[in-house]
């Protein structure tokens, strides 16, 4: 009896509340449809500010933008390391914020499917009516346009454009002080590399002369280390207008053979498949390794700073991608696309005022937006010297001991992909403090044109094909990553390479390539 009473009271209270809220809603709605000045924004938080800030809203450039536009952005962040899982859950629950910044290529079925699923909205009309700057930027380059549109010609995001002139930020890196001590020159060919790595092992006591993580052999990563010498890519790439799959191409078997030989000899790290980035860092710091694949900022800059106190002689140099014979062409590299797909900002179907939202996002494509997101606030983080922006000492020589990268991340989003302008030359030239970093850039950039020709652009299968595509790519990825490791560590003899290829055909590699080829052709016709 008592509980029945309670139920009735609870029910009545609920009804009253809902009625009350409905009343409020009606009043507000007319206001909301006209103008909204606060938006929710879902994005992965940059790793560098996690320890300093609670949310991206504390980054100075967003606060400055709020001052100028009067629009407040409420950031929502997924837990670190669970970005794709939480994104998938958000999609399944269909509770969207106003903005989502994400890599829409990893949405099952691609951006086209996200539009069809009514997750995000088509932006073509908004670009024409209220966002002229982003449209102008996209149309300024044919590559931008292809990469930003879907196959059916829809714009779906405010893209992160690579506007600087550099595209290659990673490559092989080697201990220069060891080379000098042993009287060796910078290795170019596979033969040179073998000599150098053996010398590191025998004379410097390196237990893992060349170290790497699982990305070294992975078919889905751009870590191109020694495969360049065999003129074969690791995964999907373009050769003469056709999409091909590296593991089935000429040269791949020979590359595997070499890796197997080096693995057995112990001159490439026998732990490579389980190495974490901290394990690699420890190996570099302790002198267990003398060469690895790395990046200008994340490796050369970081390690040089780290080792300055510990070992003053410690020196790293970026070396050219390996070739078989001197003067050979290098066709593969860790090359970035003209549009950084990871930070595509889209407006969702839940946004009640897409027009104001688009206007706000368009600000990042103006000259003002470029300066704000790359250099921060004038007078605080940079000053104009001879018409060029120069970072102040707050950034470059922070009194509290923060590194340049950490300080930049607190003020703007120059160091990682963000909607708008990215990797501006004026920023890079100041960001890289060591000459070794600038040299590495030049060393690797030489192969940009050839590598770009072979780079597989992000493509989307048609909606009918997307389920089949997902199933095939999951099976193929698992199988290849498993078998390649077995070939390298020798549990599967290299003679079985042919049956490996046969098995790939069995799984449906031909159909997989066909879907990719068709999608690639649609991409070219965008």
């Amino acid at each position, binding site marked *: 009896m008592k509980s029945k009473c309670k139920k009735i009271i609870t029910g009545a209270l609920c009804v009253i509340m809902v009625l009350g809220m409905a009343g409020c809603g009606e009043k507000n709605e007319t206001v909301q449809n006209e103008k909204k000045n606060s938006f929710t924004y879902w994005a992965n938080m940059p790793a560098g500010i996690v320890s300093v800030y609670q949310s991206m809203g504390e980054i100075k450039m967003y606060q400055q933008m709020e001052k100028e536009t009067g629009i407040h952005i409420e950031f929502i962040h997924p837990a670190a390391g669970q970005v*794709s*899982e939480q994104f*998938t*859950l958000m*999609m*399944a629950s*269909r509770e969207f914020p106003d903005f989502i910044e994400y890599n829409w290529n990893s*949405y*099952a079925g691609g951006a086209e499917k996200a539009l*069809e*699923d*009514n*997750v995000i909205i088509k932006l073509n009309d908004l670009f024409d009516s209220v966002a002229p700057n982003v449209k102008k930027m996209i149309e300024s380059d044919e590559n931008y346009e292809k990469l930003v549109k879907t196959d059916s010609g829809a714009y779906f995001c405010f893209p992160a454009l690579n506007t600087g002139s550099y595209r290659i930020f990673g490559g092989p890196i080697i201990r220069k002080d060891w080379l000098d001590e042993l009287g060796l020159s910078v290795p170019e060919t596979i033969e040179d590399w073998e000599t150098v790595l053996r010398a590191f092992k025998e004379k410097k006591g390196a*237990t893992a002369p060349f170290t790497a993580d*699982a990305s070294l052999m992975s078919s889905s990563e751009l870590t191109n280390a020694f495969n360049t010498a065999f003129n074969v890519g690791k995964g999907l790439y373009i050769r003469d207008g056709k999409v091909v799959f590296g593991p089935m191409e000429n040269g791949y078997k020979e590359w595997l053979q070499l890796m197997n030989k080096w693995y057995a000899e112990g001159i490439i790290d*026998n*732990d490579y*498949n*389980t190495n*974490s980035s901290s*394990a690699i860092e420890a190996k570099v710091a302790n002198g*267990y390794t003398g060469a690895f694949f790395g990046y200008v900022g994340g490796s050369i800059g970081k390690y040089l700073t780290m080792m300055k106190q510990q070992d003053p002689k410690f020196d790293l140099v970026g070396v050219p991608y390996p070739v078989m014979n001197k003067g050979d062409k290098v066709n593969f590299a860790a090359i970035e696309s003209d549009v950084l797909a990871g930070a595509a900002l889209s407006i969702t179907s839940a946004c009640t005022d897409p027009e104001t939202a688009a206007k706000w996002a368009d600000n990042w494509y103006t000259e003002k937006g470029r300066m704000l997101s790359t250099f921060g606030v004038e007078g605080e983080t940079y000053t104009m010297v001879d018409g060029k922006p120069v970072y102040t000492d707050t950034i470059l020589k922070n009194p509290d001991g923060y590194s340049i990268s950490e300080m930049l991340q607190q003020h703007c989003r120059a160091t990682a992909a963000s909607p708008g302008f990215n990797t501006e030359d004026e920023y890079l030239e100041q960001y890289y403090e060591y000459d070794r970093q600038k040299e590495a850039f030049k060393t690797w950039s030489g192969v940009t044109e050839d590598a770009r020709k072979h780079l597989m652009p992000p493509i989307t299968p048609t909606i009918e094909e997307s*389920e089949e595509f*997902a*199933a095939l*790519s*999951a*099976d193929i990825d*698992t*199988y290849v*990553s*498993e078998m*390649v*490791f*077995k070939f390298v*560590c020798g*549990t599967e003899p290299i003679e079985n390479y042919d049956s490996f290829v046969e098995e790939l055909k069995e*799984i449906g590699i031909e159909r997989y390539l066909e879907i990719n080829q068709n999608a690639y052709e649609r991409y070219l016709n965008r």
Partner: protein
Amino acid sequence: MFGIVIAFKDYQVSKGILASNWVGFKYFIEFFNGRYFARTMINTLLISFYDLLFGFPAPVIFALLLNEVKNTYFKKTIQTITYLPHFISMVVICGMIVDFFSSDGLVTKLIVSLGGKKMDYMGSAAHFRPIYIGTNIWASIGWSSIIYLAALSGIDQELYEAAVIDGAGRFKQLWHITLPGIAPTVITMLILRCGQLLSVGYEKIILLYNSGTYETADVISSYVYRMGLGSSRYSYSSAVGLFQSVVNLILLFAVNSLSKKFSETSLF
């Protein structure tokens, strides 16, 4: 629970659960015919079986041993130390395991000094299961033994006194009093454990496996995780997950009725 229907539907996010098309057993058939069905199935069963075989008796034996210790201070210290891993997050535990078994790791160094081979044990398919089971025992032995210790303290002390008067030694006491005393608890735990035979938790697996160990490590739940959250194949992974639950349910009933028949202890 209602969400289960998507296992029988071609679930489209845009259409929602109700409006998506029915496809019947399509995804179940795809899983049974898929190239990874046999492997994930065998791995799940083997890992579960070994875990049951070695992991289940371990805390029982441990509790019996502790029970024989008369020095309270020593006993309490041992208990505290063995409980510790239970309070560490799985992610940290797995990080430690990967570190210890890498080719320069603590455990590897120990193995080498005992004449073993220096290698990256986490990358070796042959060593995955022993490492998985062994570290499971290490992490859970203290905590799981609590329930048996409780059962042990519930045994009537007069029985032991009577046995001593009758001239029973330590092993006779153990065999005729202690073991029958805790048998109902052990059997109940065993039945519950059997109900989970097919559900090896994915957390520890995905934190420990890599392409070198898929062969022996990839279980149904880690496969469901990869398909569902990795490739967004909601319907397919629901179907696989449902299959796993159904088999678990059948096993639970089977073991329960067997136990009812032979030992008169059962859950329901």
